[in-house]
């Protein structure tokens, strides 16, 4: 069943990503990305990261992508024009992408045995649930980064407000 889930949602991911690539209207791309994220949330869940799955849905799909959609609506972005700004992007970038994907695939397949297998559900051997483990680590060992992150968010909010505010 794990494999089935993986294939279903993996294919969904890739399809969504490709749709993002091929759709010319940004809103379609955005929705494709939402699909990718939802599918990824499921894959997280299959890897035993329930909390992340929920967070993925809430943060990514529910907040970030909504924000994107919002901006698209606000700016009334239309279909993108086919301009040629850069040849380098195609002549250098595409082979580079191909190289990356080929190499990574090769490496991962090469190391397949060493990497091991995923078990559906809880990945942690400990009896404590995933979410309490996360919170324990987050609020003990990594308290400082956590707090710093909250400052980061605060700064980002202020920055966004300042940037987006119309000049008086």
């Amino acid at each position, binding site marked *: 069943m794990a494999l089935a889930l993986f294939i279903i949602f993996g294919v969904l991911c890739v399809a969504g990503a490709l749709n993002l690539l091929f759709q010319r209207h940004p809103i379609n791309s955005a929705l494709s990305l939402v699909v990718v994220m939802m599918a990824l949330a499921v894959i997280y869940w299959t890897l035993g990261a329930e909390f992340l799955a*929920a967070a993925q849905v*809430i943060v990514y799909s529910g907040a970030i992508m909504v924000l994107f*959609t919002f901006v698209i609506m606000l700016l009334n972005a239309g279909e993108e024009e086919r301009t040629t700004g850069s040849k380098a992007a195609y002549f250098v970038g595409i082979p580079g992408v191909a190289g990356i994907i080929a190499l990574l695939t090769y490496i991962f397949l090469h190391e397949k045995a060493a990497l091991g297998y995923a078990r559906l559900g809880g990945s942690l051997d400990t009896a404590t649930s995933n979410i309490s483990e996360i919170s324990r680590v987050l609020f003990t060992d990594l308290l400082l980064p956590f707090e710093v992150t909250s400052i980061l968010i605060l700064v980002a909010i202020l920055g966004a407000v300042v940037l987006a505010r119309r000049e008086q």
Partner: protein
Amino acid sequence: MPQLSDFHLFLVITLLKIVVVLVITLTAVAYTVLLERKVIGRIQNRWGPSRVGPFGLLQPLADGIKLFLKEDLMPLAVERPLFVISPMIALACALVSIAVVPFGAVHTVHGVDIFQIADINIGLLVILGITSIGVYGIALSGWSSNNKYSLLGSLRASAQVISYELALGLSLVGVVLRAGSLRLRDIVDSQSAHGLLSWNIIGGLQIVGFFIYLMAAYAETNRAPFDLPEAESELVAGYHTEYSSMKFAMFFMAEYANMITVSCVATLLFFGGATSPFGHMFDATGPAWLSMVMPVFWFVFKVFCFLFLYIWVRSTLPRFRYDQLMAFGWKFLLPLAMLNIIATSLALAYHG
């Protein structure tokens, strides 16, 4: 059914559960509409629907048939795929949340809990997540309609939903802190000890949290007094101006389904869910089926009370102005929710 493996059995029972719950929910949706019309009618000193069937009980059926049979208009300027898909998103999101709600005491058949479709250890987060996805339905519908009233309505709606989601989420933290879990069953169980007295709203001292939740929930569902996205006087009908027939029906159903979901959550989190207000006082009495049905009864009763409250509020309070709405959400509810969290955690730390 010996030939069925555990897995297949699980599949079959689950599917069955889904179908039953869906049917009941949709019916409930339909009759909530009727209820609303009746109650408002009574409040406004008139009868409400009374012609179709006894006491107008068949009115929802008639409405349904009407909506199904109406011509499905497709305006020319719309973004066709999105226009079509957004009501579906809205309805689906509204309905899916029910899946994690435990509407009765634990009762297993072949190892499967029959009073809850899915028992997930992050049930509360799932509800929040699905609620947040629901925004897409509104946002996309408004935008794809290619109509400025729709767009404004949807922008209002989604901004409102996103804004109040924060207060909503934070208002629940107190409850989660008290239960120590995000699983809805655990939350319910944490309130089951002494009936009414151990409900979160009373025993858990979450009355502030409850009221924040209540406000936020009204805003989330775009209900009065926060129904600005559908303010007829300003925006015709808001984001579903261009919709008709079945697609309109979906939005309509989504709204009421959302009401039900929110009421369920309120029940679960603050009013002890499917537990009896009298605690375990009458557990021993009565036959076994009674102990199975009574929790469901209590649950449905509580949800009904909330729905009634919804309707009551709608017919009583006037609509907010938009800036008041935002100010109320950001400047009042959000800080209050935070204070509530702090107070709760301090209290818990003090006791613990």
